[in-house]
């Protein structure tokens, strides 16, 4: 029972990949009011620097640190999930071809299974 509940609680591998991709997507896109897109954030930082060029605390490196952190986190998430890497290593077109081949293969297997079942029932 405990093993089953653990299995139920554990997300499947496909869900894990989706979780990773979704997390990467959330990190890189505008997810909330505090987390904006990169270009507006960059534009805002450059404008601040141009307004106060003599302010030593205004540096683009510090202003873009959050962008670089988000990019680094996304990279780390992708590095830690080889399944996600394998998923995104192929283009969607390549995956469609792979899915078609797999469907044909499964159809053949199903037919063979059906034929085997019929031959057993006949005998």
């Amino acid at each position: 029972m405990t093993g089953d509940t653990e299995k139920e609680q554990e997300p499947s591998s496909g869900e894990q990949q989706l979780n990773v991709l979704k997390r990467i997507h959330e990190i890189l896109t505008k997810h909330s009011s505090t987390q904006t897109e990169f270009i507006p954030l960059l534009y805002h930082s450059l404008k601040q620097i141009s307004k106060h060029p003599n302010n030593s605390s205004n540096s683009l490196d510090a202003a873009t640190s959050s962008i670089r952190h988000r990019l680094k986190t996304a990279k780390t998430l992708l590095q830690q999930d080889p399944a996600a890497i394998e998923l995104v290593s192929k283009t969607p077109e390549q995956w469609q071809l792979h899915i078609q081949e797999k469907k044909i293969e499964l159809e053949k297997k199903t037919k063979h299974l059906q034929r085997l079942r019929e031959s057993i029932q006949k005998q």
Partner: protein
Amino acid sequence: MSTPGPVPSSTSVATLPFSAQDKTQEQVSEELQSVGIYQDLERYEETIQQLSKSVDTFKPDLSLIDKVIECDKKLYETLEEFDEYYKIEEELSRLDKEQKNIDNKTREILETLNTCYNSLNELPMLEQVEFEQKVMLKQREKIHSKVVLDYAMKLAKFTRFPPTFDKSMIGPNNFIWPAEDSLRKGMLAMASLKKKELLLDALDEDNVNNDNNTSKIDEMRNTNEDSVDDRFNNKEQVQDATEDTERRGSFEFTANGKEDSETKSEENPDLELDLDLDLFNPDEF
């Protein structure tokens, strides 16, 4: 500005469905370099670093801004493809489940077939069963000689075969004389064929006996010397002799019949002599 949360521990390599589990770290890093999103992220990171460096050193490079915009555009184009990847992943997991289901069914069928094959192999072959049945029936048809002999021993009068028994002969023909009923039948048949002769012979014998009796009476009258005791003894002897002749009629089989009769005559010679005198006189015929 919010920082992204820590990487979840559920994204472990051990639970992955793909062959990525078997890949080494170097292979993963090589594969990672070819992934579009990873390249975009690295290029974006590198360009921003260069831009911040150029701005912070008061040598702004406007081309880097264009490059950042290009990287951003490329990155978000790649992120837009993620929706397709979600669909692909769902389709792959569905196909994976279907494949597992088919594989399980196939395995179950093959296991059942294998079990049936083993159980059928454990059963004896039809040809073997038929052969064994034939052998059994043949054995039942044959009666064991020991059983027959035991049954014969129950029915037999003797526990051993007679010494005159000839093994080459079968049945009662091994006896040197015909059976008693055969003898009787033969005698009756002969009598029916020679009825007249026998009747005449019988009449002649009666006449001769009457003559002999009259002559004997005369002799008896002439010889009155014999005492009553002698007569009595003679009568006893006559009776013994008649009994002996009667016994001879029912012959008892022995191994040495002739020898027995000879020994009997040797043991009691007087009796034989008396018998010859009193009952049968061949000279008279």
